[in-house]
């Protein structure tokens, strides 16, 4: 077992492995043990192969013994959302249509983790094909919030968030299309970052909505998130949407980020629908920032409520096309059929309801006669949302607000009403439409002990600055960011 100072900091763990205080195998066994003890309750993971994990750790220990201690993530286990391709393990997007699929290649971000000595710990649960905000749409099982097992961990990267919060993994990768890294991070009390579009390669991220998807690092604290981000960020020539230029880790670690900072506070982020405890936690953060030398800039972003319908039209349209390749012909399970149409039909019956709904919506929005009214209109509103952000960032450096309108809701509460579920994304949907970076950090807990997250948004390329600002706020908040000893509320 690892001591507490090494389980609350992946950075400290890597340093300890590098200094040979602890072996990679010890670290791996620790997390495998935590998974064995607690994942039946949390259901964060879809696939964990202990033999594969130990083999990676043993190989690292062998090279460390030879004196080779290179690698920023040396010996650190990382949980990977199951929509990222990993060789040697299944990648299923929590969907029956990809049951047992084993990709022939690693995602770029997975290659980067391996290259820096990280250990791929296992694949985490998600809403099927990343479509959802609670992980209840998983085609396998729902994950649970470790802070209260009767509540959702958020989605779609619910498994990754729950794993980190419950101490089942020190670091995790998620993916964010409309909030799927930030919202579960907020509901589970951890840090989650959505990078500037193009800052991370999508090669190997199974596509949901191509113009919005981004891989995102998830961790207990800002230093660990910075560490992971620095490893996985960077240009990849296999992705035409990948931007040149990397992540400035040094700038992300600056100390004085709050002094003179102009913090935009949009009026629309404090509507009546906002849970009062969330409102209070975010207000407290604003006060802390002002106390450290920042200035609040009240502003209005009236297009905010239109982000959700815009988002859902764009993502469903792109998804309806991205998911057409799942026809059972080249991979995935297939029932024997005599005729092609029947084969398509039985194969694609394996999609869950939410996936089918979104495919149908997208097909409809793109179809002849409706394209201008729906898809084209959505792209025009998207352009205007981008302009609205640009005008806001002419007057401030970052935007601050809640990540979600409420803390974690009970399992089953929203799963019958799709529109209710969509409204969870009110604060997280706008930034992806404009390709902007956004980070969620823990900023307190409700009286019931449920985590509350605050979101910082910045202009294109401002990832390092968001990290620095969040880091400064984290220090002043001085919350206990340790992982849970055991899940609660069983």
């Amino acid at each position, binding site marked *: 077992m690892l001591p507490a100072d090494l389980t609350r900091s992946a950075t400290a763990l890597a340093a300890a492995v590098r200094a040979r205080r602890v072996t990679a195998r010890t670290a791996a066994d620790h997390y495998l043990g935590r998974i064995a003890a607690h994942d039946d309750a949390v259901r964060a993971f879809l696939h964990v192969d202990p033999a594969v994990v130990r083999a990676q750790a043993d190989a690292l220990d062998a090279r460390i013994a030879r004196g080779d201690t290179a690698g920023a993530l040396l010996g650190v286990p990382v949980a990977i959302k199951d929509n990222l391709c990993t060789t040697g393990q299944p990648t299923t997007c929590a969907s029956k249509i990809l049951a047992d699929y084993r990709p022939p290649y690693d995602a770029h971000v997975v290659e980067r983790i391996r290259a820096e000595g990280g250990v791929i710990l296992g694949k985490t649960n998600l809403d099927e094909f990343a479509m959802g905000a609670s992980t209840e749409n998983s085609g396998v099982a729902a994950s649970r919030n470790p802070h209260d097992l009767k509540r959702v961990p958020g989605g779609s990267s619910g498994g990754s968030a729950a794993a980190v919060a419950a101490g089942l993994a020190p670091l995790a990768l998620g993916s964010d299309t409309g909030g799927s890294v930030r919202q579960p991070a907020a509901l589970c009390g951890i840090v989650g970052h959505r990078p500037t579009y193009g800052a991370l390669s999508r090669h190997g991220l199974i596509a949901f909505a191509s113009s919005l998807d981004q891989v995102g690092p998830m961790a207990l604290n800002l230093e660990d998130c910075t560490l992971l981000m620095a490893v996985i960020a960077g240009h990849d020539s296999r992705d035409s949407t990948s931007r040149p230029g990397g992540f400035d880790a040094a700038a992300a670690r600056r100390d004085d980020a709050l002094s003179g900072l102009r913090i935009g506070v949009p009026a629309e982020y404090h509507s009546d629908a906002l849970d009062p405890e969330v409102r209070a936690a975010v207000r407290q953060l604003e006060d802390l920032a002002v106390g450290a030398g920042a200035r609040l800039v009240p502003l209005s972003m009236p297009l905010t409520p239109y982000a959700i319908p815009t988002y859902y039209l764009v993502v469903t349209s792109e998804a309806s*096309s991205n998911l057409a390749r799942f026809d059972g012909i080249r991979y995935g399970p297939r029932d024997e059929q005599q005729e092609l149409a029947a084969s398509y039909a039985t194969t694609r019956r394996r999609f869950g309801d939410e996936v089918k709904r979104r495919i149908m919506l997208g097909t409809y929005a793109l179809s002849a006669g409706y394209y201008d009214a729906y898809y084209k209109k959505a792209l025009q509103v998207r352009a205007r949302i981008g302009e609205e952000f640009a005008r806001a960032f002419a007057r401030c450096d970052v935007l601050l607000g809640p990540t979600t309108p409420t803390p974690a809701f009970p399992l089953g509460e929203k799963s019958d009403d799709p529109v209710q579920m969509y409204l969870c994304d009110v604060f997280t949907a706008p930034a992806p439409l404009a390709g902007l970076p956004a980070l969620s950090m823990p900023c307190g807990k409700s009286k019931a002990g449920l985590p509350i997250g605050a979101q910082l948004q910045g202009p294109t390329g401002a990832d390092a600055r968001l990290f620095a600002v969040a880091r400064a706020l984290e220090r002043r908040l001085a919350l206990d960011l340790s992982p849970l000893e055991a899940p609660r509320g069983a």
Partner: protein
Amino acid sequence: MELEPTIGLEVHCQLATRSKLFCRCPADFGGLPNSRTCPVCTAQPGTLPVLNQRALELALAAGHALRCTIRETIKFDRKNYFYPDLPKGYQISQFDQPLCEWGELEFEAEKGRSKVAKIRRIHLEEDAGKALHPDGLACSLVDLNRAGVPLIEIVGMPDLASPSEASAYLQALRRTLRFAGVSECDMEKGSLRCDANVSVRPKGQPELGTKVEVKNINSFRNVERALMFEIARQSEVVARGEKVVQETRSFRDSEGTTVSMRRKEDAHDYRYFPDPDLPLFDVGRARIDAARAALPEGFAARRRRYQGDWGLSEYDARVLTEEPAIAGFFDATVAAGLAPKAAANWIQGEVLAFLGETRGEFEQLRIAPAALHALVRMEEQGELSHQAAKKVLRRMLETGDSAAAAAQALDLVQIRDSGALAGTIDAVLAAEAKIVGDYKGGKETALNALLGRAMKATKGKGDPNLIKQLLLEKLGKPGG
């Protein structure tokens, strides 16, 4: 009521790149099934497209060769439909903003009458794989080697007035693209495919009739056959007082007919939208201009130059511009110093004849242009007789030997040394006393007999003019 046809051709042509349009698989023809595939072109989850620069450059070359207007910024769109040979469930193509628009192709509609047909658009797209339906098998089989191969689609306006005009247009288009280096345009190998849009209307009526699309025309010969059948079929429908149904029909080679391809009516909603994996491309003025500057000379311009600058006949000019490799060889031979007319004669006469006999391709020619020039120079300098030169060339084509080496090997270099010949001539004169006597008796033609004997004695290598001169020196005038 007299009916006239209108025809427009849609031609798909594979670009002469080494790799596919959006992935790095080799784009060559053939290969074992599925050996030229990768995670990208088999649409494994999580893979992404990256555009091949050479494909863009070749598409620009096509646009310039066909005198189109070219867009400086382009996007790609997804054309969504389900078929086993389309791995992603969509084809990456260009919908409403093609790379090139509004060009033209001048071609010889019939002997001596040239016509200009308008090109509506040229766009880039990826090819699909191949679905095979073997007889007797309860399933179909899919080979994805061709999936992702780069294509341009060239859409012509319905400007063609007859099947023979359509065939002439297609020949000219093929030659234009080959001379521009864009594509091999080989229908056998599938690097050129042609679909036709055909309608009929009363003569003189400005509006076009109902358009029928004819697919599966897989050879040049079948272009005219398919069109003739379809025009006759439509004319018959109209003559019966019925309306032509707008549909897609497939050409059946074995019967020479077109048959209706049954399609559900909603199958055509392709739900085009801009591909979100491919943001806009800046083609750029600089790249467009560079492509125009790099465009090789077209076949029509070369014909004019060969006739105008070098005085070649129209026939010669046509033969030499049949294929870019021939024209290129000809130009290079002239550049090496050979006179155009001589070069033209040798290439047409001996080189093409040799290729015809051996079923060879010009691209595989084993001699360089300078080598042909060297051979002709040897003949001009009297080292080879014309007949000998032909034999030497043949050897050069077979083996790749230089002119001098081939002439040596065949022992055909003319003997032009009087001293060397003197002995032979004396021997012949001694041996052929009767013919000498005839000559001295006044028979002038006896000289030719002696010349023949002397040539035979030198195994044909003697310089006939020199031998004749030496004989005359020795014998004096006839009858003398």
